[in-house]
């Protein structure tokens, strides 16, 4: 029983990371209908930036996180302004290829700036744990889960009860109508990119203690993508539920199925879900109107 609870805990923690990255995908997709394959690489850049601030410049953990989110937010907005705005309205395929190319550039950039070594991020939570019943809760995992809950609550509050959040929702639901209501839609899109990159940065910072930082960290984006599709692309609760299920599936199949299933179990489930219910669990995306 304790072993299972332990697995559930780790699964939830890993799932939260997938959920956060998937959330980034979904935010951008909902708002701009662009599919951002570089989300995982944005997370990698966030983790590296935070590492650099903490270890190279000796900034404290909390200010470093705030600074990282700000820097990555600016970077996301700039990315939208300079590159992605040009491909709005072009076929989805072009955008997918564009973001794949951007992701490759980010990885290359990271390996040139920070090298190909593997770093570990020191945090206030490292190597501490609390025993609760028979389950030992590592503070790193707890920090991931609590961080995700707080972030989601903040985002939820932002999107439902601030003017800016409502304006973003409007812009993502109907561009033209939002224009007519006087909402600066382009600015909203840039802000959504900023938020999405910020969320990715937080995911990177939270993930860094349990998985070392290297340039291939971004490939977690693939699993997060599976999570986003599992939940139904375009649904925010779906992204989080998808992320958590991918995390749990991965941990449990790693523990109870033969070796090798850990890495593919999530994809097997994804394929099954797509065959049975092609629009995902919480599908908000229907067939294309031709």
């Amino acid at each position, binding site marked *: 029983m304790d072993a299972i609870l332990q697995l559930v805990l780790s699964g939830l923690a890993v799932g939260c990371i997938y959920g956060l990255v998937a959330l980034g995908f979904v935010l951008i997709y909902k708002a701009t*209908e662009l599919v951002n394959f570089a989300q995982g690489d944005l997370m990698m850049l966030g983790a590296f930036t935070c590492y650099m601030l903490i270890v190279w410049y000796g900034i404290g953990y909390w200010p470093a996180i705030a600074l990282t989110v700000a820097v990555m937010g600016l970077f996301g907005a700039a990315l939208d302004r300079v590159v992605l705005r040009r491909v709005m309205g072009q076929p989805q*395929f072009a955008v*997918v290829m564009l973001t794949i190319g951007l992701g490759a550039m980010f990885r290359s950039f990271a390996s040139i700036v920070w090298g190909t070594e593997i770093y570990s991020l020191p945090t206030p939570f490292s190597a501490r744990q609390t025993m609760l019943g028979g389950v030992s809760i590592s503070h790193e995992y707890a920090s991931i889960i609590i961080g995700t809950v707080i972030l989601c609550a903040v985002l939820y509050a932002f999107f439902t009860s601030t003017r800016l959040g409502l304006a973003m929702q409007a812009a993502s639901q109907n561009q033209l109508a939002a224009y007519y209501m006087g909402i600066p839609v382009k600015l909203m899109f840039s802000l959504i990119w900023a938020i999405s990159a910020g969320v990715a940065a937080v995911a990177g910072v939270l993930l860094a203690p349990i998985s070392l930082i290297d340039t291939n960290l971004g490939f977690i984006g693939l699993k997060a993508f599976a999570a986003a599709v599992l939940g139904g692309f375009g649904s925010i609760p779906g992204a989080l539920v998808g992320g958590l299920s991918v995390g749990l599936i991965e941990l449990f199949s790693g523990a109870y199925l033969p070796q090798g299933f850990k890495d593919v179990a999530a994809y097997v489930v994804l*394929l099954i879900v797509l065959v049975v219910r092609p629009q995902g669990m919480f599908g908000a995306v229907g067939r*294309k109107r*031709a």
Partner: protein
Amino acid sequence: MRFILKTSYRQDLGLFRDGVQRNWYLALFAGLLMLPLLWPDFLVDFSQVLIFGLCGLSLMVLAGYTGLVSLGHAAFLGIGAYAHVYFVQDLGVPWLASVALAAAVTAAAGALVGLPALRMTGLYLAIATLAFALIIQEVFNRWESVTGGLKGKAVEKPVIFGVALHGDVTFYFLCLAFLIAALWATRNMLRAPLGRALMAIRDSEIAAQSIGVNLAVYKTFAFAYSAALMGVAGALFAHQVGFLAPDIFTVLLSIQFLLMVVVGGLGSLHGAIFGAVFVALLPVMISQARDVLPDWLGRLFAVLGHDTGFAVGAAVDRFVKQPGLEPGIFGLILVLFILFEPRGIYGRWVKIKLYFSLFPMYKRATFRWQKSYMKSERFR
């Protein structure tokens, strides 16, 4: 602009537009035959170009002509390669029969992926093929009796009708023969009703369906055909690399194939070949540039003084020797092409040709993208 007045069905059915075009292609063919004499040093790279040409053709049929984007084509290449090597080396099947069998196995795998693909479009299909490729890669890792697992599997030289093909030259001609056969078959397939049906599906599924195109049959066919070409390419690829390991057939390779069709120009067979030339020769060019660029730039900046030149040379040398640079250059090229020439190299070629044939009258607006509102792919 030249218009060909067609006066007979023979002319309409001909493979080439007119005699001039045919002669150009014959000249190209003669050039390709002479290549081993002209440039013997790069022959291995040219064989790579031809094999990538097959891969590009395969993905072009699927992505460029049927509009189904696959992010997992490296898996088909891997299936073809492993199946071929298994048939030849473990079961002792004759070489040509083994290639055919490998193509058949890969086509079956393709049809298997194609079936669930009938219910998915666009993004979901891309991610499903990606998931498939990742699963297949794990299968390559684990199915040791066939694939050799992580230890890998050495590939012997091809033996056709009892004749062992040892040299690079013969292998080059073998690849060339396969590529030409595949091009011929694909070109004919695409201008037959079959190919037109695929293009109709690409342009509008609903319109195609309403004029009687059976989506299920044609989409499955497109997947199977594309996979079969990939299987043949895989068989040749196995001999080209000489050693199969699961980490060859990664997502990055699939992305390289997509890069090929996008950079070459979606929706044209020329594009597939241009893209293959580009993607296969780019690493060669990068490695050449790596050797000469620091020296050149060092000499260039030496006009500012000897020390500056030396410092620039050293800095550039450090920069280009970075291991992670190459994928970044690939990424940059992809981004630049999508932003500035979405029709790829072939699109640029068409524009240049039109510029000269219309000489003083060419208008840029001929090829301008129409501005449009963002079209929603969601129901609301």
